[in-house]
């Protein structure tokens, strides 16, 4: 079964002639037809276009001129990326039917690398949520237990990789939206440094925090995907003109002598004992491999969440002002005047969580509250950033749990604040703009994946990948696959 293979394994079969991109595409499309009705990862399938792209790739391999390591690899995208000619909804009713006139830079890069695009993946509306339950269309299921959520907001991207419904996917991470679903679904998921990857054509949520990153079946695949999308883009002034290293080369470096920090504040009351045990075991594994571990302190961790829930909604309330029923998307008819049309369209087009955050952000930015909320949160952000700067004077990488617990059941977190608390370990990384990664760190007794989080210095994704690869090589967790009955 080609769908079980990693990108590097599948690419090797293409190069040796044992398999063709068309065979791989057809196997994935068949598997999506059989299993996606259970997992519900896809919002839109682009089967015909995918077969066309695969046939072009076949021709390149036939003359031994593939475009690179992603040529012919079946991939899929969170529905937050604009795709030329393919409906892009961002999980929202307000964008139902929106057909972007251009590709996001990351999409264009994957196409140019020969990637075969299978479709668009489910997500929490406008990337606001931790479960995909905020999707306007349906909730994606966790492939390890269909009664549980896959995490979010990039839940479709994580579930698709875990269930072998795509070889690798792209998602976005504003407060944990790649790392948390990667943890819940047991895949590798990497949030690069703020500025590492272009956001041109990405539908904006919170512009000082959003970043694009990959999900892979293993660490090497995440590295391959990052290599394909990283780098400065003249179309995104927030992308950084920083050289992109060879990530594949970093994978084999090992962790001997590497200084690994363990943050006290991430081992707190409320941390699931099974998650703690797995993370402690992972730390011991890294020590066995030659890493030097030491405790570090990130004292403002507990304030990160509160600061985030001012900053992200404030930026969102501004970014989402563009959904006004004029240029694209939904318009509610029968309005008295223009303002009434805006208000009714937004009232009908946005879901409960998006409305909540637009309200919260508008409130925090409104006259009389700005200093108390937004101004204060930005100062706290400085304190969170300084915590990391001090820690990284002592260590090369930080290791911690990705989430306080494992995948929860659908409907379990009905209270918004309880849902937000799930992101307490991932949010500080976004506030500080740092790269973070979740790798499979074991399983609970009941067979649910546990995420191990690695946090690195700015633009040092290579050390995350190197550490993750060394850990993965010493364990056999990734050999386990969810069982989906046909």
């Amino acid at each position, binding site marked *: 079964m080609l769908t079980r293979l990693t990108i590097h394994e599948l690419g090797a079969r293409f190069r040796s002639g044992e398999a063709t991109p068309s065979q791989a595409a057809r196997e994935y499309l068949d598997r999506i037809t059989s299993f996606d009705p259970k997992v519900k990862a896809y919002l839109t399938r682009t089967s015909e276009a995918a077969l066309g792209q695969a046939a072009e790739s076949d021709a390149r391999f036939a003359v031994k001129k593939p475009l690179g390591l992603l040529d012919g690899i079946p991939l899929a995208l969170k529905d937050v990326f604009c795709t030329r000619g393919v409906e892009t909804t961002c999980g929202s009713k307000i964008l139902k039917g929106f057909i972007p*006139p251009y590709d996001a830079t990351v999409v264009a890069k994957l196409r140019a690398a020969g990637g075969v695009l299978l479709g668009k993946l489910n997500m929490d509306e406008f990337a606001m949520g931790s479960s995909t339950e905020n999707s306007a269309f349906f909730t994606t299921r966790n492939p390890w237990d269909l009664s549980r959520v896959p995490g979010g907001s990039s839940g479709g991207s994580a579930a698709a990789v875990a269930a072998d419904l795509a070889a690798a996917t792209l998602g976005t991470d504003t407060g944990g939206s790649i790392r948390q679903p990667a943890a819940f679904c047991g895949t590798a998921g990497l949030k690069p*440094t*703020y*500025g590492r990857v272009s956001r041109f054509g990405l539908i904006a949520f919170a512009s*000082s925090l959003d970043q694009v990153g990959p999900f892979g079946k293993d660490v090497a695949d995440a590295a391959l995907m990052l290599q394909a999308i990283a780098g400065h883009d*003249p179309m995104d*002034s*927030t992308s*950084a003109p920083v050289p992109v290293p060879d990530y594949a080369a970093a994978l084999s470096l090992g962790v001997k002598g590497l200084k690994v920090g363990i943050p006290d504040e991430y081992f707190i009351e409320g941390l699931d004992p099974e998650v703690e045990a797995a993370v402690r075991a992972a730390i011991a594994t890294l020590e066995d491999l030659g890493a030097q571990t030491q405790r570090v302190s990130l004292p*403002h961790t507990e*304030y990160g969440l*509160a*600061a985030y*829930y*001012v900053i992200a909604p404030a930026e969102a309330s501004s970014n989402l*002002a563009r959904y006004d*029923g*004029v*240029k*694209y*998307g939904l*318009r509610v008819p029968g309005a008295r*005047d*223009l*303002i009434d*049309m*805006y*208000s*009714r369209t*937004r*009232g*009908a087009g*946005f879901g*409960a969580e998006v*409305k*909540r955050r*637009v*309200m*919260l952000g*508008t*409130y925090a930015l*409104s006259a009389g509250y700005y200093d108390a*909320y937004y101004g*204060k*949160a*930005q*100062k*706290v*952000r*400085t*304190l969170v*950033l300084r915590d990391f700067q001090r820690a990284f004077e002592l260590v090369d990488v930080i290791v911690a749990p990705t989430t306080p617990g494992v995948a929860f059941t659908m409907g379990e977190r009905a*209270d*918004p*604040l309880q849902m*937000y608390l799930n992101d307490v370990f991932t949010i500080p990384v976004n506030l*500080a*703009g*740092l790269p973070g990664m979740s790798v499979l760190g074991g399983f609970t007794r009941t067979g649910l994946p546990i995420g191990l989080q690695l946090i690195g210095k*700015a633009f040092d994704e290579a050390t995350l990948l190197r550490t993750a690869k060394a850990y993965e090589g010493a364990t056999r967790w990734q050999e386990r696959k969810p069982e989906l009955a046909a």
Partner: protein
Amino acid sequence: MAEPKITMKEVESVARLARLTLTDAEKERMRRELDGILSYIDKLRALDTEGVPPTSRAVPMTNVMREDEPRDSFPQDLMLANAPDRSGEFFRVPKIIEESPEAS
């Protein structure tokens, strides 16, 4: 009972600013939920931030300039293709200004 962080009147005023039509049930639920979230956010007040500069983005960035060179733009039809309503080469919207009696 603690003073509510946000009143119904404030919810209505913020909804107006945000251009959101909310039903009465949504307003009440919004007031209750925002109250809980704002109470949680209040923990920031406990932190002394005297003299701490604000961070607007974590990776420092100054103005990013590019050469002012003409480039192709997207065709107008393509840019109008997603519009819910259009008139020729324009987006059409409901009236903005009250019509005066003598205007047609």
